[in-house]
């Protein structure tokens, strides 16, 4: 019995992650703490050169106002006050307009776009035909003898996204496994079920306009996975996904 060929078919699946591009918003406690830390730092600090200059100039202005004709500085000399500098810097900051954190894709809820939800991980899901069902899955292909499981996963990625994808695969070992038995109708002695081994990769290339995406695909966050994946599959996938 030990020498009999195993009846499980092997599949290699690739979980492609697009890492976050912007920082996540702070929690309430984090914001409160950040404000407190700033206050404490201010209290413990000494005056900087700029602040000393500002205080001196305020002092001078006050003295000049109190004694009306105090002209001990050389008249006609235009002095740049520290306050003017601060105003200038403030203006410069207001003139600069940064890119929006919530993009158009967010507003339209366009789930095929990579520009959505820039502060969380996005996973790739493709629609595949398993048996006679069309299911949303991580891209997977069957393992062929002669290749390692990692190359199977790479082949799966290439099948669905084309060859011009730069992805960093995290190691040779699989991250998770989903085992299922075929329905009784097609189950045979040699073909009990299938084992799908998941590999994780980080997407390096920033835009996929070059990629020939075949079929339906989606980029979803971990919370949205539940909308598309079956419960058993989802349970196994959630175990190796952080965030």
């Amino acid at each position, binding site marked *: 019995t030990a020498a009999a060929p*195993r009846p*499980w078919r*092997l599949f290699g699946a690739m979980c492609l992650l697009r*890492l*976050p*591009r*912007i*920082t996540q918003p702070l*929690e309430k*406690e*984090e914001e*409160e*703490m950040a404000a*407190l830390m700033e206050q404490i730092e*201010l*209290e413990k*600090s*000494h*005056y900087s050169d700029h602040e*000393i200059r500002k205080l001196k100039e305020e002092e001078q202005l006050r003295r000049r106002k109190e004694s009306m004709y105090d002209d001990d500085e050389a008249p006609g000399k235009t002095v740049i006050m520290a306050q003017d500098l601060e105003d200038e810097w403030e203006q410069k900051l207001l003139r600069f307009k*940064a*890119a*929006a*954190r919530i*993009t158009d894709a967010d507003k339209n809820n366009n789930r095929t776009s990579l*520009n959505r939800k*820039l*502060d969380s991980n996005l996973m790739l899901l493709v629609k595949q035909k398993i048996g006679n069902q069309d299911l949303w899955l991580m891209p997977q292909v069957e393992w062929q003898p002669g290749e*390692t*499981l*990692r190359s199977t996963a790479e082949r799966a990625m290439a099948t669905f996204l084309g060859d011009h994808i730069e992805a*960093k*695969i*995290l*190691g*040779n*070992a*699989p*991250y*998770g*496994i989903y*085992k299922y038995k075929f329905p009784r109708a097609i189950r045979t002695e040699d073909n009990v079920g299938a*084992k799908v*081994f*998941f590999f994780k990769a*980080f997407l390096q290339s920033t835009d996929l306009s070059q990629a020939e995406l075949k079929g339906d695909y989606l980029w979803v966050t971990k919370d949205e996975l539940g909308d598309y994946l079956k419960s058993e599959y989802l349970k*196994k996938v959630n*175990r*190796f996904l*952080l965030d």
Partner: protein
Amino acid sequence: MSSKSVSPHALCSFSFSFWLPQMVPFRGSHWQTSLLAFRASLPVRAQPKKKKKVDVKREQAQKDRMKKKIKKLEKAAPEMIPIEDFVTPLKYSDSNRVRSLPALSFEETERRVLLMKKWCSFKQKQDKAEKKAIQTLVEAQQEALKELRLESEELYQAAIRRDEGLFPFERDGPNYTPPLPGYDPPEGKCIDITKVYTQ
């Protein structure tokens, strides 16, 4: 030493006077390179040799003295490099620099203490959640490897092999806003004025 050795030039000159009657074209000394040419340089005989040897000795003595000095300097303990961050420049210890702020009220101190305690428990929960997530990650991987081993040994061996291309892994961290397309950063040059100490 030089007084004892017989210089070959002396021998040469002696032989010259001895053979003269034969009128053989003979070079007077090796200083005279051709018979017809005049003596190009003064044939200084014993002097340059003495100077050379004395010079060599003096130079060697000088080198030894220098080496001894260098060894003494090296033996001395290396000078400590001052850490710039730990030394506050004197201009910041002036009294006019001290900030004058109103004292904290009792409510404020209470609020701060309570906030610190809330923060402590928040961070502890966060840490525990992270550790739990890592634990599940490791368990999932171990389960996958176990199943793989049941399937085929060679695939398992290929899976547990170390991935050489993975490290060093570099990634630019997330910023506050996404990159602005077509942004032209202002020109500028950063001049580094850190003091570099050598030991």
